[in-house]
């Protein structure tokens, strides 16, 4: 296990789990027992996106250290044990024939999208990314891009470039120049709504990874539902842990 702080509010955790890593696809998550070496931590597990699927059989998570669970995880050190259940849920889709994708991520949402970037690069798909963060020190562009060679536009709250109208203008320019075959997003309701509208306008397919508090993480309890508009136009509660966390961009509803 490797454990290290990333900036002021983030933490990365990498564990050796070759069997699991080999079976994990971008967009899937694990349900982690958040107990430090002394056994302290919250009662329930916490879902965490896979952020790195290492070729060397390592599985990486990137945490926004926020509450009981993430701070217990951030206290883990080399040699400690981590109980994980997974891989769980449906990952992102990369259709054959796609050449370019656009990714829009905010905050720790980039952790969920990072493996997609790597997978796209491995298939020769070019990645254009717009990353939104509070401030430059929170961006984690390296954590996002890894070795994928993704081209990144960074927008910040601190200079106003992350405001929806500014992001909309930026996205329209990228849609025009990069002409993505598909778009993907995670981490912000406002950005999701923006991307949903633009993708519909440009008629580009897309996916969004959603979050929801979980009980079992295995599809048994129906704690984790989100309203999803089905193909027939009706709205149904779908389980983020089972039917998700990745949903079609146009079928997901704002939260």
């Amino acid at each position, binding site marked *: 296990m490797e454990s290290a702080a990333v900036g002021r509010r983030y933490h990365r955790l990498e564990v050796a789990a070759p069997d699991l890593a080999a079976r994990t696809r971008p967009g899937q998550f694990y349900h982690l027992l958040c107990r430090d070496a002394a056994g302290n931590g919250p009662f329930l597990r916490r879902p965490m996106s896979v952020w790195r699927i290492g070729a060397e059989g390592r599985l990486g998570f990137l945490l926004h250290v926020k509450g009981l669970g993430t701070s217990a995880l951030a206290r883990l050190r080399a040699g400690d044990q981590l109980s994980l259940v997974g891989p769980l849920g449906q990952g992102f889709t990369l259709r054959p024939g796609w050449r370019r994708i656009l990714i829009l991520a905010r905050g720790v949402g980039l952790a969920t999208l990072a493996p997609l970037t790597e997978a796209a690069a491995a298939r020769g798909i070019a990645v254009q990314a717009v990353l939104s963060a509070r401030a430059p020190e929170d961006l984690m562009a390296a954590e996002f891009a890894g070795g994928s060679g993704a081209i990144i536009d960074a927008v910040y709250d601190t200079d106003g470039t992350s405001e929806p109208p500014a992001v909309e203008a930026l996205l329209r320019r990228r849609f025009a120049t990069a002409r993505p075959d598909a778009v993907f997003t995670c981490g912000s309701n406002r950005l999701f709504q923006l991307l949903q509208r633009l993708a519909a306008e440009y008629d580009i397919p897309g996916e969004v990874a959603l979050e929801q508090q979980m*009980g079992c993480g295995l599809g048994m309890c129906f704690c984790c539902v989100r309203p999803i508009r089905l193909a027939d136009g009706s709205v149904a509660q779908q389980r983020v842990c089972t039917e998700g966390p990745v949903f079609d961009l146009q079928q997901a509803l704002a939260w």
Partner: protein
Amino acid sequence: MVVDLSVRLGRLTLANPIMPASGTFGPELAQAFDLDRLGALVTKSITPEFREGNALPRVAETENGLLNSIGIPGKGLDHFIEHGMPEWRRFAAPLVVSLSAPTVAEFARAAARLARTPGIAAIEANISCPNLEEDGRAFAMLPKTAAAAVAALRRASSLPLWVKLSPNTGDIAAVARACEAAGAEVLVVANTILGLAIDIETGRPKLGAGMGGFSGPAFKPIALRLVWQCAQAVRIPIIGVGGIMNAADAVESLMAGASAVQVGTASFIHPVAMPQVLEGLEEFCQRKGITRIGDLVGVALPRQVTGMAAE
């Protein structure tokens, strides 16, 4: 030493006393272990009609417990019989279908349907799910309403009838006796107790629905007490539910008067909790020289009121 783990529950004999609690289990758990190791399988509660479920968030945690307000979402009985049953019939362990309905008539109609459906070992009547729109009221709150539901279910189907009680009643012993008299074969004790948690930063309840059902280790002393009260009130077997996380908890429930136990919330924390409880139970019996699991049942009850086996 070989321990006889089999338990007799009314007309059914189960291979062992460990089974899941309704609503905390599904065929999905087969990814974690062989479900046929369980004494029985228990479905989430099925309602006659489609139900959307409650507002979000539906789950919140406390230091040692879980609050949920799922609201029994589901696609209804037809969908269950058509799509759910074939999935369950892949398993060999006896299948117990948990049934919930808003009225006595609908309960009876649904039970009659289940009785005509092959592959069902017993019905577990969930007469106890706190109905949040009625401030937590349920059939199991009063002896009279409980007995009415049970009697109708008894008439409607010849399947073994298990009845799941509520901890929110003021007189569990009276409700238990009423259910026994109305034809219940087994009592499942108990469903979640109503609880509340508030996010003090926002000043709003942590659950979208406000109150919710409280389960897990924090609930265990209350669940044990309910088992103990029921065991002294009725002669039919009891299944203990509430806060069972490990084998020691299961032993406590058996000693309080349960003939078998259900494991709920524990499976969320450790998907393999149930086989672990089973193994630990066998080890406990071996260490104590107990050859039949039934010999543990009710040993902690006051001597004078129990006719059960004691050490």
